[in-house]
């Protein structure tokens, strides 16, 4: 797979070196993959995200995008930000216009799109994310989930290669979480590289290609969900639990209910399918 972004020994501090939010972070992002960033609050996920599009400039270390070190000249920064979109955690930090239509058009026009193309693009995104039912409402009359949809549309309209979502489902009800997750699946289907921070282990386990486990400004562990969530020690350090599907699957295998050698189910549905495939009556009575 092709490398899209690489961080080498990044250091970043908000307070001139008093405390370090990133402390020697190194990692590689590959094109077209789905990354779940996990770790405690304050472990450096959001800071790293803002480094990715050049909002924060690391105090030390180098960030590579597309093989080239990121340049902090204003023109190069604009080019970088056109390719790396960030959806902020709190949509109220992102939505600056009371009009949904104007809000979404902002990024498209900043890319220098002519008005006609921008209009088409805005309408396409409004259609795609099903924003039309509330697009005539002012931003302050939208629900949290609707604001989130608009915040994602803000970024999608710019067609970035890489989209970063900072806890996209935080404070959303289950229905809006499903909508947002549906949008994310659509994006990855189109080959966009998605970086998402989340505290939801079950979701990260079922969704991600790769888990990035952060701890105190460093990468504690990187790997496939199966690998990372089997590393009990790393999980303990990061203060994370284990996904329900994995936990139950391992107990069932240990007890001999499920035969050994099955591939790890990514969610409870997959696990249920294993159980349904068992010939009935073969369950040991001890269970």
């Amino acid at each position, binding site marked *: 797979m092709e490398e899209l972004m690489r961080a080498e020994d990044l250091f970043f501090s908000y307070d001139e070196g008093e405390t370090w939010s990133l402390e020697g972070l190194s990692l590689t992002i590959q094109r077209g993959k789905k990354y779940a960033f996990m770790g405690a609050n304050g472990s450096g996920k959001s800071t790293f995200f803002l480094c990715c599009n050049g909002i924060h400039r690391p105090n030390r270390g180098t960030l590579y995008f597309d093989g080239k070190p990121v340049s902090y000249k204003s023109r190069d920064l604009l080019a970088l930000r056109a390719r790396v979109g960030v959806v902020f955690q709190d949509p109220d930090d992102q939505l600056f216009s009371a009009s949904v239509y104007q809000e979404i058009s902002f990024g498209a026009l900043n890319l220098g799109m002519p008005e006609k193309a921008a*209009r088409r693009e805005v309408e396409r995104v409004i259609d795609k994310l099903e924003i039309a039912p509330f697009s005539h409402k002012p931003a302050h009359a939208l629900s949290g989930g609707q604001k989130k949809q608009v915040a994602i549309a803000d970024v999608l309209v710019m067609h970035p290669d890489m989209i970063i979502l900072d806890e996209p489902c935080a404070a959303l009800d289950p229905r809006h979480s499903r909508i947002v997750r549906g949008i994310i699946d659509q994006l990855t289907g189109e080959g966009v590289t998605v970086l998402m921070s989340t505290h939801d282990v079950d979701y990260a386990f079922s969704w991600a290609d790769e888990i990035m486990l952060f701890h105190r400004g460093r990468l504690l562990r990187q790997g496939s969900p199966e690998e990372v969530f089997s590393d009990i020690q790393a999980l303990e350090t990061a203060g994370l639990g284990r996904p329900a599907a994995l936990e139950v699957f391992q107990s069932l295998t240990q007890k001999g209910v499920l035969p050994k050698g099955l591939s790890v189910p990514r969610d409870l549905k997959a696990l249920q399918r294993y159980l349904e495939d068992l010939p009935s009556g073969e369950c040991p009575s001890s269970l």
Partner: protein
Amino acid sequence: MIVIDKICYSSGLRGINAGEKMAFSVMTLLFCVVSRNAAVALAVFFGNTVLTLWKGRTPWKQYARLLLIPAAFVLLSTAAILVNFSRVPLDAFAVPIGEYYITGSRRSLALCIRLILTALSAASSLYFLSLSTPVTDILQVLQRLRCPTLLVELMLLTYRFIFVLAETAADMTTAQQSRLGNRNFKTSVRSFGALGSMLFIRAVKRSARIYDAMESRCYDGKLRVLRESIPPKGAEIAGIVLWGLVLFGIFMGSVLLWKS
């Protein structure tokens, strides 16, 4: 303000070109203020009210409540013109109190009526606009009229973040109340102070985050957004012009009638 904001987004007149509505509102406002004519004022008030209630489908109770605000001011200030204390009774009315009279002249009574009508119909012109046109639409018209970009951008941001700030303040007040922050005068003064300073800190922090978010979308110092204007319609423009002519006719008619 929040009531007006809610009404204008669901107004039946929202689908009409904002420039037309603004022109209508400014035209009727000017007719009232410049002519100072009771008949014109009555016609303007009637026209605006019919449009706002019937075409705009604004609930009449809310419209009446909104009009009461300027009405209270106007009545109080005109009372000062009308009511005099004097030893000599004037021609309109006179209530004797000992040696003095509470009294007023016919001329000042006529002046008062004219003032009340003019002021209220001018208010109805402004309400017509604000109850039918969201702020974002008005800003687009201002931009088209070559209002300085900086001013329009500031208004755009201010309008959005008034609501964010109000929401934050309301949440914080609730949190203070649930911890008995307003149990007596002393605690409520202290809570209010804390609320003010916290709001300020939050506003500063939020503005930093918003700037980051805007920069993330390639903001380079200029707020570019698409206009979403509804094209003006010939019939509506003709209606506005016609109404202007009618008002002018009423004005001329009443002046001539007065002279004869």
